[in-house]
């Protein structure tokens, strides 16, 4: 369970102080797959940054499974929280091969010492995983990842996250830069991971269709406040036009 407790965050600008969140409260339950929507500037991205430690809160508390994490540096939080970015380049290493990327991700949580980075005995397992994406990546193990398409990279990034299921999954518009077909592949993979490992998930999106189709709870942020919080079992009652108003 994730809990935001009286979070306050403001930025100093030339025009004075701009408050993004004031005493913000929010709880993510263990079974939640939350879609977060809201206009630009509503605080969606800031929320995610505060959560993973890319930015620090001014005051308040963030509790992940009972442990307060708001003062921990990003890399320590990311042992437990996986974030998938909008930019597919951020989740994979471009100058390494698919095989090397998979091997690295497979090793998360262990010591990265002076043993060879790729263990050959795991290759069949990687191939099976890659084949499950249906993008033909299993035949390109030795291709540099920078030569893949954005969608392929993002699908690979999701797969790499899945190799070590996190305690919390944060998706920051992770399909918005992809073409509809690959976006669908990536979303299906996301859903599979979330359901298989029962990971509480926070998904920021501008895509209303995906928000309602995949999430089971819908949050709308506006000016740093939650203006709507719906369980999506009642999705039929939600009027999409109203959400975008």
């Amino acid at each position, binding site marked *: 369970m994730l809990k935001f407790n009286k979070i306050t965050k403001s930025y100093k600008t030339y025009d004075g102080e701009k408050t993004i969140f004031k005493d913000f409260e929010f709880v993510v339950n263990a079974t939640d797959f939350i879609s977060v929507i809201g206009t630009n500037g509503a605080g969606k991205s800031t929320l995610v940054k505060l959560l993973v430690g890319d930015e620090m809160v001014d005051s308040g508390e963030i509790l992940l499974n009972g442990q307060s994490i708001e003062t921990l540096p990003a890399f320590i939080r990311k042992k437990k929280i996986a974030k998938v*970015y909008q930019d597919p380049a951020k989740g994979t290493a471009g100058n390494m091969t698919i095989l090397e990327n998979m091997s690295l991700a497979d*090793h998360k949580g262990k010591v990265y010492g002076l043993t060879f980075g790729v263990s050959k005995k795991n290759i069949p397992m990687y191939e099976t995983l890659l084949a499950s994406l249906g993008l033909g990546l299993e035949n390109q193990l030795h291709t540099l990842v920078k030569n893949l398409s954005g969608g392929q990279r993002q699908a690979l990034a999701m797969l790499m996250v899945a190799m070590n299921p996190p305690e919390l999954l944060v998706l920051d518009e992770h399909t918005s830069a992809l073409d509809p077909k690959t976006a669908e592949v990536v979303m299906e993979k996301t859903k599979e991971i979330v359901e298989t490992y029962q990971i509480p998930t926070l998904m920021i999106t501008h895509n209303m269709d995906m928000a309602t189709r995949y999430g089971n709870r819908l949050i709308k942020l506006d000016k740093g406040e939650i203006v709507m919080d719906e369980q999506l079992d009642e999705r039929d009652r939600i009027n999409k036009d109203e959400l975008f108003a």
Partner: protein
Amino acid sequence: MTATMTEGLIFAIMVLGVYISYKILDFPDLTVDGSFVLGAAVVTRGLTTGLPLSISMIAAFIAGGAAGYLTGFIHTRFNITNLLSGILVMIGLYSVNLRILGRANVNLFTVDHLFSSGNSVIKVIVLIVCVKLLLDLFFKTRFGYMIRLVGDNPNLIEGFGLNPKSYKIYGLVLANGLVAFAGGILAQYQGYADINMGTGMLVMGLASIILGEAICRRGFSVMLSTAAVIGSVVYRLALALTLKIGFAPGDLKLITALLLLSILVMNHHKAGVTNA
């Protein structure tokens, strides 16, 4: 010609250090101008005070590594830009090097060292092949992968729950250790250490790497580390040639700068060279 080649191969060790910081870490590290002399100074001081060669060389590597650590620490801890951090350490090292050497120029004519006897060329070739192979091997290990990620995608290191800053520092330690090691070798090869022998090292390293890349992308695919070694030798040969056709030694830095500029201008497309 042989002497130039040998020198080129010794400098290639330094170039491999620059290759780590510039190419792998994406960190233009000016520390090398100081750590190169540091290595030479430590070896010279070690040998003249009677320490065994192996200990002196290891000490040079460690001293260089410490310099790299300092640059990395200043950069990551105080958020000072990579260029400035390197410059600060480089300038500071000038005094340190002078302290270690005792005076501006110390010769090794009266002590036994690596090149006192035997075939220098073969020794240097063995050395550079070992260093290059070890380095290539290192960058295939998990730890090496992490260092490659520093320049490739530090975000991913964080994603694995590790601190990218630490790996940046480890990379700088390795890079400057190698550079200092090369400085120590060169001091023995030329028979003296000089307080100014490091001036322009980074630029020379960059020139060699870029030259190597430019040569190697025409036609055949090689590892970047190989390209760096080739670049270093070709670069020394080119410099020797310019001296031969009548330029003064003092002109070499200007020629290097112009050479680097012209390659950079021509070098718009990269192909055929794979990283690490």
